[in-house]
Protein backbone atom coordinates (compact mmCIF):
# COMPACT_ATOMS: atom_id res chain seq x y z
CA UNK A 1 0.00 0.00 0.00
CA UNK A 2 1.37 3.40 -0.99
CA UNK A 3 1.79 6.27 1.46
CA UNK A 4 0.98 8.80 -1.21
CA UNK A 5 -2.13 10.70 0.00
CA UNK A 6 -3.36 11.00 -3.59
CA UNK A 7 -3.37 7.26 -4.29
CA UNK A 8 -4.18 5.61 -0.96
CA UNK A 9 -7.77 5.18 0.29
CA UNK A 10 -9.24 8.36 1.80
CA UNK A 11 -9.81 6.59 5.13
CA UNK A 12 -6.09 5.86 5.36
CA UNK A 13 -5.12 9.40 4.38
CA UNK A 14 -7.40 10.89 7.01
CA UNK A 15 -5.83 8.73 9.71
CA UNK A 16 -2.27 9.13 8.42
CA UNK A 17 0.26 9.89 11.20
CA UNK A 18 1.85 12.54 8.94
CA UNK A 19 -1.06 14.80 9.93
CA UNK A 20 -0.58 14.25 13.69
CA UNK A 21 0.83 17.78 13.96
CA UNK A 22 -2.63 19.15 13.05
CA UNK A 23 -4.59 17.04 15.54
CA UNK A 24 -4.05 18.75 18.91
CA UNK A 25 -7.00 21.01 19.73
CA UNK A 26 -4.81 24.11 19.89
CA UNK A 27 -3.51 23.54 16.36
CA UNK A 28 -7.00 22.72 15.06
CA UNK A 29 -8.28 26.02 16.42
CA UNK A 30 -5.45 27.88 14.70
CA UNK A 31 -6.37 26.28 11.39
CA UNK A 32 -10.02 27.23 11.93
CA UNK A 33 -8.90 30.85 12.45
CA UNK A 34 -6.82 30.60 9.28
CA UNK A 35 -9.89 29.37 7.39
CA UNK A 36 -11.92 32.32 8.67
CA UNK A 37 -9.12 34.72 7.71
CA UNK A 38 -9.18 33.31 4.18
CA UNK A 39 -12.94 33.67 3.77
CA UNK A 40 -12.71 37.28 5.01
CA UNK A 41 -9.78 38.06 2.70
CA UNK A 42 -11.44 36.53 -0.37
CA UNK A 43 -14.17 39.16 -1.03
CA UNK A 44 -11.78 41.99 -0.18
CA UNK A 45 -9.25 40.67 -2.69
CA UNK A 46 -11.98 40.15 -5.27
CA UNK A 47 -13.30 43.70 -4.86
CA UNK A 48 -9.81 45.23 -4.80
CA UNK A 49 -8.59 43.54 -7.99
CA UNK A 50 -11.94 43.54 -9.78
CA UNK A 51 -11.04 40.22 -11.40
CA UNK A 52 -12.49 36.78 -10.66
CA UNK A 53 -9.04 35.38 -11.51
CA UNK A 54 -7.90 36.67 -8.10
CA UNK A 55 -9.90 33.77 -6.63
CA UNK A 56 -7.11 31.49 -7.87
CA UNK A 57 -4.78 33.18 -5.37
CA UNK A 58 -7.08 32.08 -2.56
CA UNK A 59 -7.77 28.64 -3.98
CA UNK A 60 -4.43 27.01 -3.17
CA UNK A 61 -4.26 28.06 0.52
CA UNK A 62 -7.96 27.26 0.82
CA UNK A 63 -7.43 23.68 -0.41
CA UNK A 64 -4.51 23.28 1.99
CA UNK A 65 -6.48 24.64 4.97
CA UNK A 66 -9.61 22.59 4.22
CA UNK A 67 -7.55 19.43 3.71
CA UNK A 68 -5.70 20.04 6.97
CA UNK A 69 -8.96 20.62 8.83
CA UNK A 70 -10.39 17.38 7.46
CA UNK A 71 -7.29 15.39 8.40
CA UNK A 72 -7.18 17.03 11.84
CA UNK A 73 -10.55 15.48 12.71
CA UNK A 74 -9.68 12.21 10.94
CA UNK A 75 -12.06 12.88 8.06
CA UNK A 76 -15.17 12.61 10.18
CA UNK A 77 -17.14 14.87 7.84
CA UNK A 78 -15.58 13.49 4.64
CA UNK A 79 -15.65 9.73 5.06
CA UNK A 80 -18.66 7.52 4.40
CA UNK A 81 -20.48 6.06 7.40
CA UNK A 82 -19.00 2.60 6.79
CA UNK A 83 -15.48 4.05 7.11
CA UNK A 84 -16.22 5.52 10.54
CA UNK A 85 -16.54 3.67 13.82
CA UNK A 86 -19.79 3.90 15.78
CA UNK A 87 -18.56 6.74 18.02
CA UNK A 88 -17.23 8.82 15.11
CA UNK A 89 -20.45 8.32 13.15
CA UNK A 90 -22.51 9.50 16.12
CA UNK A 91 -20.27 12.53 16.77
CA UNK A 92 -20.43 13.48 13.07
CA UNK A 93 -24.20 13.12 12.78
CA UNK A 94 -24.78 14.98 16.05
CA UNK A 95 -22.72 17.92 14.78
CA UNK A 96 -24.74 18.06 11.55
CA UNK A 97 -28.03 17.83 13.47
CA UNK A 98 -27.00 20.59 15.85
CA UNK A 99 -25.89 22.87 13.02
CA UNK A 100 -28.72 22.09 10.58
CA UNK A 101 -30.66 25.35 11.01
CA UNK A 102 -27.50 27.47 11.09
CA UNK A 103 -26.25 25.78 7.90
CA UNK A 104 -29.62 26.25 6.24
CA UNK A 105 -29.67 29.95 7.12
CA UNK A 106 -26.09 30.52 5.94
CA UNK A 107 -26.73 28.60 2.71
CA UNK A 108 -29.74 30.77 1.96
CA UNK A 109 -27.96 34.03 2.77
CA UNK A 110 -25.08 32.94 0.53
CA UNK A 111 -27.46 32.06 -2.31
CA UNK A 112 -29.17 35.44 -2.19
CA UNK A 113 -25.87 37.32 -2.04
CA UNK A 114 -24.37 35.37 -4.93
CA UNK A 115 -27.52 35.58 -7.05
CA UNK A 116 -27.04 39.38 -7.19
CA UNK A 117 -24.14 38.65 -9.56
CA UNK A 118 -26.66 38.42 -12.40
CA UNK A 119 -28.43 41.64 -11.47
CA UNK A 120 -25.48 43.97 -11.09
CA UNK A 121 -24.47 43.27 -7.49
CA UNK A 122 -21.01 44.49 -6.43
CA UNK A 123 -18.04 42.11 -6.45
CA UNK A 124 -17.71 42.64 -2.69
CA UNK A 125 -21.27 41.37 -2.18
CA UNK A 126 -20.86 38.42 -4.56
CA UNK A 127 -17.49 37.51 -3.01
CA UNK A 128 -18.98 37.75 0.47
CA UNK A 129 -21.75 35.42 -0.65
CA UNK A 130 -19.14 32.93 -1.84
CA UNK A 131 -17.39 33.17 1.53
CA UNK A 132 -20.63 32.64 3.43
CA UNK A 133 -21.27 29.58 1.26
CA UNK A 134 -17.81 28.18 2.10
CA UNK A 135 -18.63 28.66 5.78
CA UNK A 136 -22.04 26.98 5.28
CA UNK A 137 -20.58 23.86 3.69
CA UNK A 138 -17.60 23.77 6.05
CA UNK A 139 -19.49 24.60 9.24
CA UNK A 140 -19.68 21.06 10.69
CA UNK A 141 -15.97 20.54 9.99
CA UNK A 142 -15.12 23.89 11.59
CA UNK A 143 -17.35 23.09 14.57
CA UNK A 144 -15.77 19.68 15.15
CA UNK A 145 -12.22 20.99 14.67
CA UNK A 146 -12.88 23.72 17.20
CA UNK A 147 -14.76 21.73 19.81
CA UNK A 148 -13.42 18.15 19.84
CA UNK A 149 -11.15 17.53 22.83
CA UNK A 150 -7.58 16.34 22.43
CA UNK A 151 -7.24 12.65 21.64
CA UNK A 152 -6.45 10.60 24.78
CA UNK A 153 -3.12 9.26 23.52
CA UNK A 154 -1.93 12.62 22.11
CA UNK A 155 1.53 13.44 23.33
Amino acid at each position, binding site marked *: MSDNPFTQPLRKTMNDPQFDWARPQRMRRRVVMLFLALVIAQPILLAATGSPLSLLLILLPFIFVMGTLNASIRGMTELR*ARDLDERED*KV*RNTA*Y*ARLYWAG*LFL*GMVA*AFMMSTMQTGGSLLLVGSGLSV*FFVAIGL*PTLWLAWSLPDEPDAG
Partner: protein
Amino acid sequence: MSSQSASPSLLSRRFTVLTVYGGYLCVALVVASGRMDAHVMPSIQGLIAGIMAWSGVWILSRMAPHWRLGQAPDAELDEREIALRLRAYYLAYVIFNTGVFMFLVGLSLFMDIAKVSSVTYVQISAVLWGVFLYGWTLPSAVIAWIDRGPADDE
Protein backbone atom coordinates in the same frame (compact mmCIF):
# COMPACT_ATOMS: atom_id res chain seq x y z
CA MET B 1 -42.30 6.28 20.72
CA SER B 2 -42.40 3.82 17.90
CA SER B 3 -42.26 4.84 14.27
CA GLN B 4 -43.86 1.57 13.28
CA SER B 5 -47.35 2.14 14.63
CA ALA B 6 -49.78 3.12 11.87
CA SER B 7 -46.85 3.95 9.62
CA PRO B 8 -47.40 4.20 5.85
CA SER B 9 -45.39 1.76 3.73
CA LEU B 10 -41.93 2.72 2.46
CA LEU B 11 -43.24 2.96 -1.09
CA SER B 12 -46.13 5.26 -0.22
CA ARG B 13 -43.84 7.45 1.93
CA ARG B 14 -41.39 7.85 -0.93
CA PHE B 15 -44.24 8.56 -3.34
CA THR B 16 -45.59 11.25 -0.99
CA VAL B 17 -42.19 12.91 -0.67
CA LEU B 18 -41.64 12.86 -4.44
CA THR B 19 -45.15 14.19 -5.11
CA VAL B 20 -44.86 17.07 -2.65
CA TYR B 21 -41.33 18.10 -3.60
CA GLY B 22 -41.88 17.60 -7.33
CA GLY B 23 -45.28 19.30 -7.17
CA TYR B 24 -43.89 22.40 -5.50
CA LEU B 25 -41.01 22.51 -7.96
CA CYS B 26 -43.48 22.48 -10.87
CA VAL B 27 -45.62 25.23 -9.34
CA ALA B 28 -42.53 27.32 -8.56
CA LEU B 29 -41.23 26.96 -12.11
CA VAL B 30 -44.58 27.95 -13.67
CA VAL B 31 -44.96 30.92 -11.34
CA ALA B 32 -41.35 32.06 -11.74
CA SER B 33 -41.34 31.64 -15.52
CA GLY B 34 -43.86 34.45 -15.93
CA ARG B 35 -46.36 32.31 -17.85
CA MET B 36 -49.12 33.37 -15.46
CA ASP B 37 -48.29 37.08 -15.57
CA ALA B 38 -50.93 38.07 -18.11
CA HIS B 39 -53.74 36.34 -16.21
CA VAL B 40 -52.93 36.44 -12.49
CA MET B 41 -51.70 39.35 -10.36
CA PRO B 42 -48.20 38.95 -8.83
CA SER B 43 -49.56 39.09 -5.26
CA ILE B 44 -51.92 36.22 -6.07
CA GLN B 45 -49.06 34.23 -7.62
CA GLY B 46 -47.01 34.74 -4.43
CA LEU B 47 -50.03 33.58 -2.45
CA ILE B 48 -50.36 30.46 -4.62
CA ALA B 49 -46.71 29.58 -3.90
CA GLY B 50 -47.30 30.13 -0.17
CA ILE B 51 -50.42 27.98 -0.10
CA MET B 52 -48.63 25.21 -2.02
CA ALA B 53 -45.70 25.30 0.42
CA TRP B 54 -47.98 25.12 3.48
CA SER B 55 -49.98 22.34 1.83
CA GLY B 56 -46.73 20.44 1.28
CA VAL B 57 -45.80 20.79 4.95
CA TRP B 58 -49.29 19.63 5.94
CA ILE B 59 -49.22 16.61 3.60
CA LEU B 60 -45.76 15.52 4.80
CA SER B 61 -46.82 15.94 8.43
CA ARG B 62 -49.54 13.34 7.73
CA MET B 63 -46.73 10.74 7.74
CA ALA B 64 -47.13 11.26 11.47
CA PRO B 65 -44.58 8.87 13.03
CA HIS B 66 -41.81 9.95 10.69
CA TRP B 67 -42.69 13.61 10.98
CA ARG B 68 -42.49 13.34 14.79
CA LEU B 69 -39.27 11.39 14.52
CA GLY B 70 -37.73 14.39 12.76
CA GLN B 71 -39.02 16.96 15.22
CA ALA B 72 -39.51 15.30 18.66
CA PRO B 73 -37.16 15.87 21.64
CA ASP B 74 -34.52 13.14 22.23
CA ALA B 75 -36.25 12.07 25.47
CA GLU B 76 -39.23 10.77 23.48
CA LEU B 77 -37.12 8.58 21.17
CA ASP B 78 -35.35 5.25 21.63
CA GLU B 79 -31.72 4.64 20.69
CA ARG B 80 -32.46 3.43 17.16
CA GLU B 81 -34.73 6.38 16.46
CA ILE B 82 -32.17 8.89 17.72
CA ALA B 83 -29.47 7.34 15.53
CA LEU B 84 -31.84 7.42 12.54
CA ARG B 85 -32.75 11.04 13.22
CA LEU B 86 -29.09 12.13 13.53
CA ARG B 87 -28.25 10.41 10.26
CA ALA B 88 -31.23 12.10 8.59
CA TYR B 89 -30.04 15.54 9.71
CA TYR B 90 -26.58 14.77 8.31
CA LEU B 91 -28.07 13.78 4.95
CA ALA B 92 -30.50 16.73 4.96
CA TYR B 93 -27.63 19.17 5.58
CA VAL B 94 -25.61 17.76 2.70
CA ILE B 95 -28.64 17.62 0.38
CA PHE B 96 -29.73 21.17 1.18
CA ASN B 97 -26.34 22.79 0.61
CA THR B 98 -25.75 20.72 -2.53
CA GLY B 99 -29.18 21.92 -3.69
CA VAL B 100 -28.19 25.54 -3.06
CA PHE B 101 -25.04 25.03 -5.14
CA MET B 102 -26.96 23.37 -8.00
CA PHE B 103 -29.59 26.12 -7.86
CA LEU B 104 -26.95 28.83 -8.17
CA VAL B 105 -25.22 27.13 -11.09
CA GLY B 106 -28.58 26.55 -12.83
CA LEU B 107 -29.74 30.12 -12.16
CA SER B 108 -26.50 31.54 -13.47
CA LEU B 109 -26.66 29.49 -16.67
CA PHE B 110 -30.36 30.24 -17.18
CA MET B 111 -29.95 33.98 -16.70
CA ASP B 112 -27.02 34.05 -19.12
CA ILE B 113 -28.81 32.01 -21.78
CA ALA B 114 -32.18 33.77 -21.42
CA LYS B 115 -30.51 37.21 -21.11
CA VAL B 116 -32.43 37.95 -17.92
CA SER B 117 -31.00 40.80 -15.84
CA SER B 118 -33.53 41.25 -13.05
CA VAL B 119 -35.68 39.16 -10.73
CA THR B 120 -39.30 39.79 -9.81
CA TYR B 121 -41.23 39.72 -6.55
CA VAL B 122 -42.98 36.53 -7.68
CA GLN B 123 -39.70 34.74 -8.43
CA ILE B 124 -38.28 35.68 -5.01
CA SER B 125 -41.56 34.54 -3.38
CA ALA B 126 -41.36 31.15 -5.11
CA VAL B 127 -37.77 30.64 -3.90
CA LEU B 128 -38.48 31.78 -0.33
CA TRP B 129 -41.54 29.54 0.01
CA GLY B 130 -39.50 26.69 -1.47
CA VAL B 131 -36.79 27.17 1.15
CA PHE B 132 -39.46 27.19 3.83
CA LEU B 133 -40.97 23.93 2.55
CA TYR B 134 -37.78 22.02 1.79
CA GLY B 135 -35.75 23.38 4.73
CA TRP B 136 -38.36 22.62 7.35
CA THR B 137 -39.45 19.22 6.08
CA LEU B 138 -36.20 17.78 4.70
CA PRO B 139 -35.03 15.93 7.86
CA SER B 140 -38.44 14.27 8.30
CA ALA B 141 -38.65 13.54 4.58
CA VAL B 142 -35.22 11.88 4.68
CA ILE B 143 -36.31 9.75 7.64
CA ALA B 144 -39.49 8.76 5.80
CA TRP B 145 -37.36 7.90 2.76
CA ILE B 146 -34.70 5.78 4.49
CA ASP B 147 -36.47 4.21 7.48
CA ARG B 148 -37.09 0.50 6.95
CA GLY B 149 -37.98 -0.16 10.59
CA PRO B 150 -36.21 -2.11 13.37
CA ALA B 151 -35.88 -5.19 11.09
CA ASP B 152 -33.04 -3.34 9.34
CA ASP B 153 -30.90 -3.55 12.45
CA GLU B 154 -31.23 -7.28 12.85
